[in-house]
C-alpha cells in the first residue's frame, strides 16, 4: 500500500514546477497554468492526507472547495487578460511595464 | 479651583485664528491686531498674582511655586494619565508676557503684508497659541504637543512669505527642529514608563521633579546621562548652540521681518526655557556632573565667541543680526551651565533682554529693507542724514544689544559674567578661564555693532538714498515700546524682572546644586 510520503513529494514537485512556470513564462495565460499547477499540488496534498486517515473526510471536501476557487480565479484572470489583450494587443506580460518606479 | 485665566490667554489667539479665516478681507488685519491686543491685556492680568508675594518667601519651593494652575483630565485611558495642565511660575510668567508683547508688536509690524494676508494672520495667531502653550504647559506631553504646534505655522510662514531661498530655509528649519523633537519624544517615553508617582506613571513635570518619582534614574548613571544628552540636543537645536545653529542664519535671512522678530524674540527662548523647566529640575544629578558642566560651559563660550566672529564678517545686515543672536544666546547657556545663583538669574534676564533687543534689531533691519529693498551693508551708508529719528532709535536698539550700561543688554551679561566667575563646579580655575574668554566677547560685540552702525548710519549721505522717507508713525509705534522696555529693564532690573524670576531660579538651583 503506497505510503503518504510519495504523494507529498509529488505535490512538492508540482509546487516547484508551478512556480517555475509562472516565473519563466512571459505569456499571461502560461502564468495561469503555473498557478493551476500550484493549486493542484494543494488539492493533491489535501486528498492524500484525508485518504491516509488524517482528518477524515474534511480533506476531500476542502479539495473540492479548492478546485472551485481555482475555477473562479481562472475566470477572473482570463477576463482581465482578455481586456489586457484588447488594449495592448499582446499577451506578453512584460510589455506592461508602464507602471514602475 | 481652575482660574481659567491662563487657558483663556492661550486660546484667545486660536479664537482669533478662527475669526480671521471667516472675516471679510478688509477686516483681517484689524481682527488679528484685536486678538493679539486682547491676549496682551489678559496676560497683564497675571501681574497682580505675582506682585503680592514678598520677594523672599516667593514660591516656598519649586513644587508649589506655580500659580494660576488649570488642570483638566485629558486622556485617562489605557494606563495613560495625561491631563491638560497649565500653570505659570517665576520663569514662565515673564516669558508669557514677553510673548504677548512681541506678538502684538509683530502684528503691527506685519501691516503691509500683501500676499494672501488671511493665511498669514491665521498662521501667525496659531503660532502665538503654540508659543504661549509651550511657556505654560506643565505636562510633558502637552509641552511636546505645543512644541510641535509651533513647527507647522513657522514652516509655512517662512516657506510662503519668505525671501528668495525660502523653501530651503523652511525645510532646513523644519528638519532640525523635528530631529530634536523626535529625541524629546524618546525621552518622554522613557520618563513616562520609568516614573512611578504613587504607583502610577505620570507626565506631570512638577511630580517628576520630586525625588523618588524616577527610581530607576537614581541608580543607573548611564540612564540619566543619555536622557540629559537627548534632551539637551532637542533644546540645543532651538537655542541654537554651536553645532546645530546653521539653520538660524538661513531662516532669519529668508523669513519676513515680523516673523524673524518672533523667531529671534521667542522661538530661541523655548530652548533655554526647556532647559530650565525640564532638563535641570528633573535630571539634577546629570546637570551637576562636572563633565556636563564643562561641556555646556565650553559650548556656551564657543557660541559667544563664534557668533561674534561670524557677525563681524557678514555683509548681509540681517545675517549679522542673526549671528549676534547666537552670540547673545551663548550667554544664556553659559549662565545656566555653571550652576551659580547669579548665573541662573543672568541667563533668565538675558533671555528676556535678548528678546527685546533682537526683536528691535530685526525690526530696524526690516524698516531699511522696506525702503531700499536690499540688506547689503557695503551698499548702505549715510542714513543718519536722511532719517535722523530712525537713526536715533536704531542707535538705542543697537547699543542695548551691545550691552551698554543703563540698557537691558548690560544687566544680563554682567550677571552671567560675575556669576560664572564664582562658579565652583568647574574647580577653582576652570570657571575663571571661561569667564575671561566670555568677557573678551564684550570687545568683539562692540566691534561688530559699531562697525555696522558706522557703515550703515554714519558717513556722508549717499545719492542713491536721496528720497528715502523718514520712519513712519506705525513703525515708531513698534519701536517706542521696545526702546522704553530696554531702558526700563536696564535702569530698574530688580523691580521689572528679578523680583519674579529669582525665587523660582533659586529653588531650581537648590534642586540641582
Amino acid at each position: 500500500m503506497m505510503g503518504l510520503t510519495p504523494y507529498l513529494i509529488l505535490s512538492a514537485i508540482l509546487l516547484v514546477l508551478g512556480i517555475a512556470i509562472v516565473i519563466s513564462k512571459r505569456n499571461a495565460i502560461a502564468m495561469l497554468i503555473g498557478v493551476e499547477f500550484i493549486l493542484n499540488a494543494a488539492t493533491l496534498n489535501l486528498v492524500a492526507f484525508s485518504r491516509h486517515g488524517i482528518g477524515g473526510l474534511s480533506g476531500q471536501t476542502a479539495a473540492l472547495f479548492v478546485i472551485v476557487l481555482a475555477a473562479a480565479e481562472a475566470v477572473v484572470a482570463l477576463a482581465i487578460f482578455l481586456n489586457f489583450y484588447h488594449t495592448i494587443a499582446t499577451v506578453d506580460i512584460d510589455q506592461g511595464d508602464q507602471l514602475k518606479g | 479651583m481652575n482660574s481659567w485665566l491662563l487657558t483663556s490667554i492661550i486660546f484667545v489667539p486660536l479664537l482669533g485664528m478662527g475669526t480671521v479665516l471667516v472675516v471679510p478681507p478688509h477686516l483681517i488685519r484689524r481682527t488679528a491686531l484685536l486678538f493679539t491686543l486682547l491676549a496682551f491685556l489678559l496676560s497683564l492680568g497675571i501681574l497682580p498674582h505675582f506682585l503680592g508675594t514678598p520677594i523672599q518667601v516667593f514660591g516656598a519651593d519649586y513644587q508649589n511655586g506655580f500659580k494660576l494652575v488649570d488642570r483638566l483630565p485629558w486622556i485617562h485611558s489605557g494606563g495613560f494619565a495625561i491631563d491638560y495642565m497649565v500653570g505659570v511660575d517665576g520663569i514662565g510668567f515673564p516669558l508669557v508676557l514677553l510673548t504677548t508683547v512681541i506678538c502684538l508688536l509683530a502684528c503691527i509690524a506685519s501691516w503691509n503684508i500683501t500676499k494672501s494676508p488671511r493665511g498669514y494672520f491665521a498662521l501667525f495667531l496659531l503660532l502665538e497659541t503654540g508659543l504661549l502653550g509651550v511657556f505654560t504647559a506643565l505636562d510633558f506631553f502637552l509641552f511636546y504637543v505645543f512644541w510641535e504646534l509651533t513647527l507647522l505655522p513657522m514652516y509655512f510662514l517662512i516657506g510662503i512669505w519668505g525671501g528668495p531661498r525660502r523653501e530651503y530655509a523652511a525645510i532646513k528649519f523644519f528638519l532640525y527642529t523635528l530631529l530634536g523633537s523626535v529625541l524629546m519624544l524618546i525621552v518622554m517615553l522613557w520618563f513616562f514608563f520609568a516614573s512611578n508617582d504613587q504607583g502610577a506613571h505620570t507626565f506631570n513635570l512638577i511630580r517628576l521633579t520630586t525625588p523618588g518619582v524616577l527610581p530607576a534614574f537614581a541608580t543607573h548613571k548611564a540612564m540619566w546621562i543619555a536622557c540629559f544628552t537627548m534632551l539637551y540636543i532637542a533644546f540645543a537645536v532651538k537655542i541654537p548652540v554651536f553645532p546645530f545653529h546653521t539653520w538660524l542664519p538661513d531662516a532669519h535671512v529668508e523669513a519676513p521681518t515680523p516673523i524673524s522678530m518672533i523667531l529671534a524674540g521667542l522661538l530661541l527662548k523655548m530652548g533655554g526655557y526647556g532647559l530650565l523647566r525640564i532638563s535641570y529640575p528633573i535630571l539634577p544629578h546629570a546637570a551637576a556632573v562636572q563633565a556636563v558642566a564643562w561641556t555646556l560651559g565650553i559650548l556656551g563660550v564657543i557660541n559667544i565667541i563664534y557668533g561674534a566672529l561670524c557677525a563681524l564678517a557678514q555683509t548681509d545686515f540681517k545675517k549679522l543680526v542673526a549671528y549676534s543672536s547666537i552670540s547673545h544666546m551663548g550667554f544664556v547657556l553659559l549662565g545656566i551651565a555653571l550652576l551659580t545663583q547669579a548665573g541662573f538669574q543672568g541667563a533668565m534676564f538675558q533671555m528676556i533682554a535678548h528678546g527685546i533687543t533682537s526683536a528691535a534689531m530685526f525690526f530696524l533691519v526690516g524698516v531699511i529693507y522696506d525702503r531700499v529693498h536690499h540688506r547689503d551693508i557695503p551698499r548702505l551708508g549715510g542714513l543718519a542724514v536722511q532719517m535722523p529719528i530712525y537713526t536715533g532709535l536704531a542707535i538705542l536698539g543697537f547699543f542695548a544689544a551691545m550691552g551698554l550700561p543703563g540698557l537691558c543688554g548690560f544687566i544680563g551679561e554682567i550677571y552671567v559674567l560675575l556669576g560664572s566667575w564664582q562658579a565652583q563646579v568647574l574647580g577653582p580655575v576652570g570657571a575663571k578661564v571661561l569667564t575671561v574668554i566670555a568677557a573678551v566677547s564684550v570687545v568683539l560685540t562692540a566691534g561688530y555693532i559699531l562697525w555696522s552702525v558706522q557703515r550703515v548710519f554714519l558717513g556722508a549721505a549717499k545719492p542713491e538714498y536721496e528720497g528715502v522717507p523718514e520712519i513712519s508713525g506705525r513703525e515708531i509705534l513698534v519701536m517706542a515700546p521696545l526702546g522704553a522696555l530696554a531702558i526700563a529693564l536696564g535702569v530698574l532690573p530688580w523691580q521689572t524682572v528679578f523680583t519674579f524670576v529669582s525665587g523660582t531660579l533659586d529653588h531650581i538651583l537648590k534642586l540641582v546644586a
Partner: protein
Amino acid sequence: MLEAVIFFLLAGLAVAAGVAILLSTSIVRMAYWLITMLIAVGGLYFLLGAYFVGVIQILVYVGGVAVLLVFGVMLTSRQLAPKLRPGRGEVVWLALVGFVLLEALTLSILHTRWQQNAMAPANSVGEIGRSLLGEFLGPFELVSVLLLVAMLGAAYLARPKVPTQGPQHAKGTTVP
C-alpha cells in the same frame, strides 16, 4: 504492487507535463500539457480512492478551467505569438531557487512523523455530501456568493465595447 506501478506512471506523467510546459514555447502546446497533467492528477485521486474528488477534478478542471484556458489562448493569439524565450539570467536564478525550495520541502516532509494509520475505507459520495453540508456549510454558502461576484466581474470585463463607440484598437486610446 500494481498500485505502486500505476502511481509512478501517473506521477511521472504529471511531472513530465510540467517539464514539457517549462520547455515548450508555444502556448497552445502548453495548454494541452496542462490538460494531461490534470487528468494524471485525477487518476491519482481514483488511485487514492477519492473517486468523487477525481470525478470533480476531471469535470470541473479539465472540462471547465482547461477549456476556458484554451479559449483564452485562441482568442488572444490571433497573430503568431513571438517565440518567448526567458533570459539566461532568469533560468539560472530559477533553477537555484527551485532546487532550494524542493530540497527544503522534501527534507521537512521526510522529517515529520505522520500518524501512519491504515488507509481509510473508500467512502461513498453520501458521506462527502454530509460533510459538505455539515462541517463545511459555511464555506459552501460563501463560495456561492464568491462565484456570483467573480462571474459578475468577469462578465463586465469581458463585455465587448459598446458598438456605438466603434472600433478603437490603437494602443493608448482611452474611453472616458
